[in-house]
């Protein structure tokens, strides 16, 4: 059997990379390599979509600051909407963090009150209640139906509050932290094989099972058959996560 190959599409690596997002790409790539897969990273930048972009098996996009997000938003709407829509609806796995997560929604209401169009791939919207309100910042602990035997750990830092549309599933429930909007105890979104989340950390190094899930779904989708991939042990990460969770719970009550 020939070695399976995987093309990871990293969208806007120079612009949407405020926050350790490179770490997610590093972990995805390495764990896939350890599982015996030949990995290629395809950087998708500003401008028209190319033929090679359509061969992406796994999408990843991070967050950015306001000025950079304005540049990306324009490019997404003008050039990338059809590509991303096709990939997501077709079942291609994806990880959208923070700003990217917001972009995939229908719209974003800025702190000043203006309304920006999103790609409308997820039925959700985000609203920034104004620069006087507190940002949602802090350590986060989640429980996700997708990974029932374990807990997810990360760090959030966002001003925007995201509200899921009826029928949209959240990525996880909030055990500790604010989540999408600080009121409904939901975090992120899960749509087909696409995950949207506010979690930094970055997300994948300490929660490698999420990376393994994304890679597995990508291989299965590409080769149209169940994949039996051997990912390395996650004992170290599990111990680290458990300890962090204990510490976070103590801080909350202490």
């Amino acid at each position, binding site marked *: 059997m020939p070695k399976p190959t995987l093309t990871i599409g990293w969208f806007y690596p120079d612009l949407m990379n405020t926050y350790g997002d490179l770490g997610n790409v590093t972990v995805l790539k390495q764990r896939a390599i350890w599982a015996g897969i030949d990995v290629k990273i395809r950087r998708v930048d500003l401008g028209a979509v190319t033929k090679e972009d359509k061969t992406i098996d796994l999408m990843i996009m991070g967050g950015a600051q306001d000025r950079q997000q304005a540049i990306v938003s324009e490019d997404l709407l003008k050039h990338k909407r059809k590509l991303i829509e096709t990939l997501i609806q077709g079942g291609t796995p994806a990880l959208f963090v923070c700003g990217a997560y917001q972009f995939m929604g229908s719209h974003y209401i800025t702190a000043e009150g203006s309304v920006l169009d999103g790609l409308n791939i997820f039925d959700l919207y985000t609203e920034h209640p104004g620069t006087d309100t507190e940002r949602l*910042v802090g350590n986060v602990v989640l429980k996700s139906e997708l990974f029932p035997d374990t807990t997810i750990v990360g760090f959030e830092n966002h001003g925007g509050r995201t509200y899921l549309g009826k029928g949209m599933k959240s990525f996880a429930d909030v055990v500790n932290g604010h989540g999408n909007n600080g009121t409904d105890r939901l975090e992120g979104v899960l749509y087909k094989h696409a995950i949207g989340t506010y979690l930094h950390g970055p997300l994948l190094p300490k929660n490698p099972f999420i990376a393994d899930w994304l890679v597995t779904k990508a291989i299965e989708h590409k080769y149209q058959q169940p994949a039996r991939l051997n990912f390395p042990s996650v004992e170290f990460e599990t111990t680290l996560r458990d300890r962090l969770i204990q510490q976070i719970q103590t801080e909350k009550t202490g």
Partner: protein
Amino acid sequence: MGPLFLDLFSWIRYRVVYMSVNLLIIVTKLVSFWIRLLGLGSGSTWPGEVALRMNRRFIRTMFNRNPSLKTVLVTGTNGKTTTSRLITHLLGQTGLRVITNDTGANLLNGIASMLLTGSTWNGRLPYDAVVIEVDENVLPLLLQDVEPNALVVLNLFRDQLDRYGEVNIVSVKWENAFTKLTKKTKLILNGNDPELLFLGEKASNAAVHYFGIPKAAMPETKLGTEADQIFCPRCSHRLDFSAIAYSHLGSYSCPHCGLAAPSTIFTMARPKTTQLLGLFNFYNLTAAVLTGTLVADLKPAEATKFLVAVAPAFGRQEQITVRDRTIILQLAKNPAGFHQAMSILDEIPGEKRVVLLLNDRIPDGRDVSWIWDVDFSPVVKVAKTIYLGGDRAEDLALRLEYQQGHSITFTQEDGFALGNNLVVNRSLSALIDRAIDETPAKATLVIFPTYSAMLEVRQILKGSSLNA
């Protein structure tokens, strides 16, 4: 009758404010005296905290009472403490009496505490100049209380995003504050930082001066993973960099709107220093020299001569000897700073061992995602064994294993987690003790800590327990 009443009211209010400042000074000085006498700790920021709570205009009042004091403010993401120290030393060499907040307390309460400590009983500061290191977020507030003779801005990098929100928020606040500056203030900006050049253009009423380093001294041609401002702050087009010093500092121009440093930008040849290693210190030295020429009428060559023998501030290339080993402590708390900190490894001769310490307390930034934007290959290249410690030592362990493509397997032994070439222990004293033990006699142990870890490890190294 009306206006007379208002005048009387203002006069009474003024006297109350005036008196309460005197009262504050007396009370806080007395309490400080007793605290020091009874050895209850230094607590460098509480007197200022009290003063500001009792009188919001305390800092403003102190500066109003000392109008002939030459005021120099120093801010930026990296280099504030070192550059403040250099400028303080420089002004002192010209015969000026200088006061500065050299403990690193750079928020308003720390600045107020410095003013309290240095003032007489009736609020006079018996000095010719004050050099203040100011936190980036606090600068706009301080500028409401004082119109400085010079404001030195070193750089603006991504740092402690969880505390400040975003880099852009800081620069927007600065932009608003800078438009209010007048010709009295010499605004001394790093012209190799596109963001600062843009801000300089906006400060239309201040006397703006730029510094940088010669293009020939810039080693890179490609932007690294730690760079965060690569788009024109004026028109959002991608910038052209013909040379890069580090992060987003370099020789750049915007192909769309023409944003570029002016030809008047001040540069100098790199001075030969035995300490103050690294390109980042070349910037700090250059900033200090330019400030010396503008504030104290020094010639650049004179100023440089005064500076080359200055020893670094605590935690910045600080050299400590413990059990006959040479230990160098270099603060590293954000991607740009870390890359620069690691560059000193090339300038240290001989064998090296490296310790990385990562805490996630308030002064360090609670989110540690940023370590994934650091390329640790300079450390991997020179250190046979890498020691990892601090609250988030295991995050570092994960980072380093992925950096090297190693599988994530650790064995546990006596409280240490051991990987291929990694030794991990959250406890600083246990880790440092082992690192010193395993460092050969002629080798140098280089420690890169985040801020709170730096304070802790200094205490450990300077304390008697490890010197036996």
